[in-house]
């Protein structure tokens, strides 16, 4: 495991501890709940990716130039800014010229299957950004009722955009940890990363396609004997689990409490008959969360008392 991605466990715990300073409770409504357990992280990433893409693809298809530019932005060191410039212009609705001196221009055709690697989430981030900008521009001229209906789509696009950015980082770290390095060297065609990944899962040894592989490659890597041991840092698991659980369901009620005392409560439109029950359920979850929160801080206070007591004879605080 490379040193740059292998953060110490203390740092991982610190990440989780710092996120304890904010408590977020979301209530969502779902059709046909089956209580499915989250699959292993590589498959969960595939499922998240598939759900996001099923939402964006009918509205704006992902094409090879966008995917290759997303790869270039991740892979190229000095060239990342130029690929980013291309993506920025494309997301703004322009038809930017391809930076041909960096890589041959890819054909302008839709992309087939995606991998669960960082480049796919990077590409989806830009797709969602482009869609959101187009929707905002269109809603400025739309009648008020159409504008209200578009708010739900805007919220989902924002979620895809933000989650894709976070999952891109997670996918990058996981690929470095569990798969063979596949980032092309500077100046190399970034398509190597996205479109020409080595299909032979045994060629590079180890578990090359758990992350950064197509669904079949990931499945093959997971089905090998002996089964791969996926020791993934808790903060990454929490991130993937949250994105997988929320999916693209509409959040009806959301409460965010911060240790500083700020409380943010968001309510989506819902029928009157549902509001009372959902609000009661949500309030109950918030109450339990706050009770748990209080307990954690009471425990910390007790522990501080124990430390001072061990130093000064008896509890001083």
């Amino acid at each position, binding site marked *: 495991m490379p040193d740059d991605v292998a953060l110490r466990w203390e740092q991982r715990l610190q990440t989780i501890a710092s996120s304890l300073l904010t408590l977020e409770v979301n209530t969502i409504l779902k059709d046909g*709940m089956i209580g499915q357990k989250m699959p292993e992280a590589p498959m969960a990433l595939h499922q998240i990716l598939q759900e996001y893409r099923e939402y964006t693809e009918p509205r704006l298809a992902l094409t090879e130039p966008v995917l290759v530019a997303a790869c270039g932005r991740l892979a190229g060191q000095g060239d990342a800014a130029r690929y980013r410039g291309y993506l920025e212009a494309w997301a703004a609705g322009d038809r930017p010229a391809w930076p041909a001196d960096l890589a041959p221009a890819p054909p302008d055709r839709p992309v087939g299957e995606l991998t669960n690697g960082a480049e796919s989430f990077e590409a989806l981030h830009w797709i969602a950004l482009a869609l959101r900008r187009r929707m905002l521009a269109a809603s400025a001229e739309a009648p008020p009722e159409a504008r209200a209906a578009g708010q739900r789509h805007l919220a989902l696009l924002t979620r895809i955009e933000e989650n894709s950015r976070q999952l891109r980082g997670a996918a990058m770290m996981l690929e470095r940890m569990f798969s063979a390095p596949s980032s092309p060297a500077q100046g190399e065609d970034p398509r190597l990363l996205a479109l020409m990944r080595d299909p032979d899962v045994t060629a590079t040894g180890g578990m090359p396609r758990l992350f950064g592989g197509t669904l079949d490659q990931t499945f093959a890597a997971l089905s090998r004997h002996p089964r791969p041991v996926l020791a993934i840092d808790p903060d990454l698991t929490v991130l993937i689990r949250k994105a997988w*659980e929320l999916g693209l369901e509409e959040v009806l009620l959301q409460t965010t409490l911060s240790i500083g005392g700020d409380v943010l409560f968001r309510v989506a439109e819902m029928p009157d008959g549902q509001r009372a*029950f959902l609000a009661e359920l949500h309030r*109950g979850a918030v109450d339990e969360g706050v009770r*748990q929160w209080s307990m954690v801080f009471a425990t910390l206070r007790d522990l501080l008392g124990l430390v001072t007591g061990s130093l*000064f004879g008896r509890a001083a605080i």
Partner: protein
Amino acid sequence: MPPAAVARPALRDSLRLAWRLAVEGGITVVTPAEAPAIATLLQADGDMVVTVSRSLLAASPDARSGLLAAHVAGVRAVLDGSARLVRILGRLGTLLAALRLWGTLAGLGLSALPAASALRGNAPALIATWSLPSLLLPALAWLLRPALRFALIRAARGWT
């Protein structure tokens, strides 16, 4: 939400819950288990996601209340289980931290010994000014505990 009586979780259950929180990224409490209608994901960072089946909204108020009470009891049991482990681990951590503090103080004194012995022939004054106070530091801190505690309480009262 009506309070629900929940038995004290066993340590084994607490360990299992903590393992699932860390490895699976959270625990989902589903009610009822055979036909999920309410599910709550509890995560290690304290966040929750409550998922409600749309079909539940068509159920009678009594049925919904019963499910809600059962679900809250389940969520509370999981939270109490993880809380118990937090307390146990916290106490262990505190014990280690306290031992480490005293070890550091003692180490400060002991670390002065090699330097003191090396310089013994040439710099008795240095031994007197550096090594001896370092050795006495832990003992001094121990003896002055009441005074330190008094000062700490006064300071705390002053701040509040």
